[in-house]
Structures are given as structure tokens and as C-alpha cells.
């Protein structure tokens, strides 16, 4: 097992910060968030889970897709290539979100150019979880506190340092020149929650589509967008051409893409005013069905990594794990009656 000390880890991160964009968890007024940093001194060690996932670096909050200059002739240009970015301290659940993103944006044509460019320039150094925390449920959705999926390097804390596992070519390349020792140290197994509810397979969910449960659940929903914005796998967006410059004889637009959510009232409203998901019940039901039925059936990946951020962030306490558990119980009743 390759082992590096804290000191050498910080030296390595300093070197990386000089060569490319380094993103790591920082403490901002008591909240842990990922931020671009210039030096490893800014990193908040000993964090549990950040408030927001690191998806901002491969699916930015706001992104320019095209630049359009409309003058005597129309010129369309693409924004410049994204800078090489390394995200340090990615929890295994957050790393698995790239599987969901790849399933939609890369593996099924047409390929999303912006995502492909960000993915190409992205390197993720993961930090294994020593335990599952309060609202974590990665095991329910096929993950684990020490999962390696989606990462380029996985660090696991051991006595006096970290065990390093190089998982991809990108990982091996950026690890070149780092001082490490080869030791036969065993990494402790993470502490897990027992008794987590079982997630029903996607083909079973259809039986509950018209159940009254969704209406009762959505009574308190505000139709805000918090759950989707804190979710590592949510990827719905809005696109608009925005005027950014107005000069004599020349109009400049940028085609902006920004985060949006299916839970928002107007998300599915179409030209003419018709809204197929006009009630909160339909929208909230769609959110769970997308994650656990539509997405797996259409793209082959679950839309949830079990991080539990939505459980913490929802202002009215709608709990996805409770939904999974209730669906399990309701399906038992339905299947008994069938």
C-alpha cells in the first residue's frame, strides 16, 4: 500500500495548485463548501460532508455555451476550453455522480460538448469516509463509504497519513514525483449504518404512480429548487440567449445555461402556457420517479448517490430515505393484494 504523510500531501497539493485549478473543501462561516484555493492552508480538514456537491466544476451553475455576435454578419464562437481542474477531498458518493452524468451527457448521443470538455479537464482525488454520517445512505443505492467509482485517486486516512490508491491513468500521471512509502498497512473498514431501507427496483415503481401517497407527501413542498441544487446527480438546466452587449450596429448575445429544477413551478411549462406538471404532487412525484425509475430505465444509472444533502437542506423536511422506505412498504401491500 502506498502511504503518504500529511506533510507530503500538502506539498503535493501546493504543487498542483501552481500547475492547475485546485478545488478543495473550505470553511466559509461555519459551512463547508468546495472552493478554488491557492494554497492547501485554506483546506478545512476533518469535514463530514460539504453543503454543496462539487458538481459545479463539471456542470457549472452558469455556463456560456455559445457567444453570438450579430452585426452585418452573424458570428458564433464557442467559449474557451476549461482549465485543467483537480478537485481534492471528493467523497465517494459525490464521485459516483459522474457515473450518472456520463450516462446522460456522454454515453447517449448527442454528446454534451461542454460537459465532455469539463470531464476531460477534470481530475478527482477522493477522500474515503471513515464512517457513514447522520443522513448518509450510500449503501442503499449501490455505493459505499470507500467506493472507488468515478475517482482518479482514492485517499484513505491511516495512522500518520493517507493510503493512496491510483485508479486511472490521470491519477497516476498527477501522482508522479510525490514522496511515498510502501507499507503493509490495512485500512480500517468504515462504520456503516445497519438497517437502511431497501430500494425497490425501477420496474416495480410504476405500480405506485397513482397512489395518494404522493399528494400527501407534496402538501408541504414549497416547489423551491433546493433539493436539486444540492444534489450531486441532478442535472436539469435552463437555456436562454441573454443580451450582454449593445453597440451601434452590433448585438452580442451569450447562450447561457443555468441550473434549474423539475420541482420548480414553471419548469415544465411550455409555449402556450400548458403545464403538464402543474401541481406540486406531479412535480415531487416526478423527482423521485426520475431518480429511481426513469433514469435507470432510460440511461442505465440510478439518479441518486445516497449523500443525504437533500434531507438536510429541505426547508420543510421532505426525506428521500423516508420515501424509499414508504415505497417499500406500500409496494408490499400492493403486491400482497395483487
Amino acid at each position: 500500500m502506498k502511504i503518504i504523510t500529511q506533510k507530503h500531501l500538502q506539498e503535493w497539493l501546493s504543487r498542483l495548485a501552481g500547475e492547475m485549478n485546485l478545488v478543495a473543501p473550505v470553511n466559509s462561516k461555519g459551512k463547508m463548501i468546495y472552493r478554488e484555493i491557492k494554497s492547501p492552508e485554506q483546506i478545512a480538514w476533518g469535514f463530514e460532508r460539504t453543503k454543496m456537491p462539487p458538481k459545479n466544476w463539471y456542470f457549472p451553475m452558469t455556463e456560456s455555451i455559445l457567444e453570438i455576435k450579430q452585426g452585418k454578419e452573424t458570428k458564433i464562437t464557442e467559449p474557451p476550453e476549461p482549465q485543467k481542474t483537480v478537485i481534492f477531498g471528493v467523497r465517494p458518493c459525490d464521485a459516483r455522480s459522474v457515473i450518472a452524468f456520463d450516462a446522460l451527457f456522454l454515453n447517449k448521443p448527442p454528446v454534451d460538448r461542454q460537459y465532455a470538455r469539463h470531464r476531460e479537464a477534470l481530475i478527482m482525488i477522493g477522500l474515503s469516509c471513515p464512517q457513514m454520517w447522520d443522513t448518509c445512505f450510500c449503501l442503499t443505492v449501490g455505493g459505499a463509504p470507500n467506493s472507488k467509482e468515478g475517482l482518479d485517486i482514492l485517499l484513505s486516512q491511516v495512522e500518520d497519513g493517507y493510503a493512496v490508491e491510483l485508479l486511472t491513468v490521470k491519477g497516476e500521471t498527477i501522482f508522479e514525483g510525490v514522496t511515498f512509502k510502501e507499507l503493509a498497512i490495512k485500512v480500517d473498514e468504515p462504520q456503516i449504518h445497519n438497517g437502511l431501507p431497501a430500494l425497490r427496483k425501477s420496474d416495480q415503481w410504476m405500480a405506485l404512480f397513482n397512489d395518494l401517497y404522493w399528494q400527501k407527501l407534496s402538501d408541504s413542498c414549497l416547489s423551491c429548487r433546493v433539493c436539486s441544487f444540492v444534489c450531486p446527480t441532478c442535472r436539469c438546466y435552463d437555456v436562454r440567449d441573454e443580451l450582454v452587449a449593445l453597440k451601434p450596429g452590433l448585438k452580442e448575445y451569450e447562450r447561457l445555461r443555468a441550473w434549474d429544477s423539475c420541482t420548480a413551478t414553471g419548469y415544465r411549462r411550455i409555449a402556450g402556457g400548458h403545464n403538464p406538471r402543474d401541481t406540486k404532487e406531479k412535480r415531487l412525484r416526478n423527482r423521485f420517479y426520475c431518480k429511481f425509475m426513469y433514469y435507470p430505465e432510460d440511461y442505465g444509472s440510478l439518479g441518486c448517490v445516497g449523500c443525504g444533502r437533500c434531507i438536510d437542506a429541505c426547508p420543510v423536511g421532505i426525506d428521500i430515505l423516508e420515501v424509499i422506505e414508504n415505497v417499500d412498504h406500500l409496494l408490499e401491500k400492493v403486491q400482497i393484494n395483487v
Partner: protein
Amino acid sequence: MTKMNKQIRAAAEKYLKDSIVSCVIGYEEDSRGRIRPAFIEDAKDADRLIWNATCNLNLVNYLHQRKLSPGKDQPVPKTAVLVRPCDVRSINLLISEQQIKRENIKLIGITCPGTEINGQPRTICQFCMERTPVDWDVLIDSDQPIEIPSAEDIYEDIKEMENWTPAERLAYWQKEFDNCIRCYACRLACPGCYCYECVSEQVDPHWTSIALDVPEKMFFHVMRAYHLAGRCVGCDACEAACPMNIPLSRLNRKVAREILEMFNYKTGDDPEEAPLLACFDPHERLRT
């Protein structure tokens, strides 16, 4: 079980058993011990209702989904709602703006010992002088003793900020709004924000872009604070709902303070009076 919870459940059970209302909106505890809104429609579910200091949303907000008739020739549903003194002012606001009718609502008022946001007592609560709602149908006394403070000084943090230079204030708000994710939880948790389409989402006329950048977020928050001028009751549901702990109540309290000084007006005193910005005094000369 506390006396307060017993009384809340008894009131709800009575309203539902006697079919006075079809739904009681209150709070319940989930399996993790956290508080969340509860919609009780059956008298036997009334024992889910509880109240404690973490009940910091404004349940009057949910009346917006029960203010219209559900169909042809059907009456507007009757609802009972659990309210703190600040929440009741939203009721008066909505009545004066002709959104709800008093006869369709039953108010389960509580004398309020103060609520918390993010584990800290709310700033307004620490100096609140109004511990009994201005209107109620059932009044339930709080379990905890209520200490009414001697002076109203809910504006300390605002006065401090007013002494900074404009550049410092701008830097402060830009830093705060950098954390904002434009989720609109603040707007949707607010009973005063019930516009069908918010200006920050309008395409035509186009006020602001969809970008989640600081200027756009500042536009949204400044305009929301302005649109709530004379309408904000100071319940701080916006700050309670915010996932990024942004001190939104400062903006609203600043506007409320200016309005109190300029017009001696507090939102929600009287359901009959006209909204502040819809009237004027031809003799007033304000510093514009």
C-alpha cells in the same frame, strides 16, 4: 407531553370532528426528530401535532394553496392554521390584499416564547414586544415563561452596518450573495410572495438573466425586499428556509425600520387598511 401540545391537539381535533375546517396546518416531528409542517385532515391524526422552538416557518404561506375554490360551484376550503404573533400579521396582510377571507380560516394562536433559526434564538424574537397574536380563534399559552424585553432594539446589527462605508456594505452583501444558489426557497416560504410569475423569472419583460451570478442574485434579493416594503411581517421564514444561512432578515428589517420611521406603519395591524404603497398623503414631503 406538554400542556401546549395537548391543547393544540385538542383544538385541532375539535375543529376536524365538528367539520368546522377540512384541514389543520401545524407541525409534526419526523422519524429523525426534526420538525416539519403537517397537514391534518382526519381528527384521529391530530395527535401528530406538536410545537417547539424550532417551529420557525410561517404556516400562513400554505393558505395560498387553499384560497381558491377547487372546482365549479365548490366552496373555498376552510382551514385552521397554527400561528405565532408575527404569522398572524400575514393573515391581516393577505386579507387586506384580498387573497383570503377571514371566515374561511380558523386561527390557532399561541403566545410565543420565541423561535430559533439554525440553533440560535432569532434576533427579532429576543426583542419582540408582541407575544400575543393580534387575532385568534383559539389562544394557547406557551409552556415556557415569556419574558417581554424592556426596549425594542431589533435593529442593532443594522445600525452597525449603517456605520460602514458603502464599499464595505457592498462587499458584505456580495460575499453573502456569492453563497446564494438562487433556489428561491426564501421567496416560496414567504406568505407575502405569491406572484404567479416572479420578476426574476420573467422572460417578457426581461429583467434579469438566468445566470446564478452575484449581480443577478443581488437584483433578486433587493427587488424582493423592495416588493415586500410595507408587506413584510418579520416572521423570518425566508431566513429559516435558506439552505445557505444567508442573513436575509437584515434586508427586510432595514426596510421595515425605515417604513416605521417614515410612516409610523407596521404591517398587519388591521385587515381593513389599504396597503402602504397604494396610498399617499398629499402633504408629506419625504427625502427621496
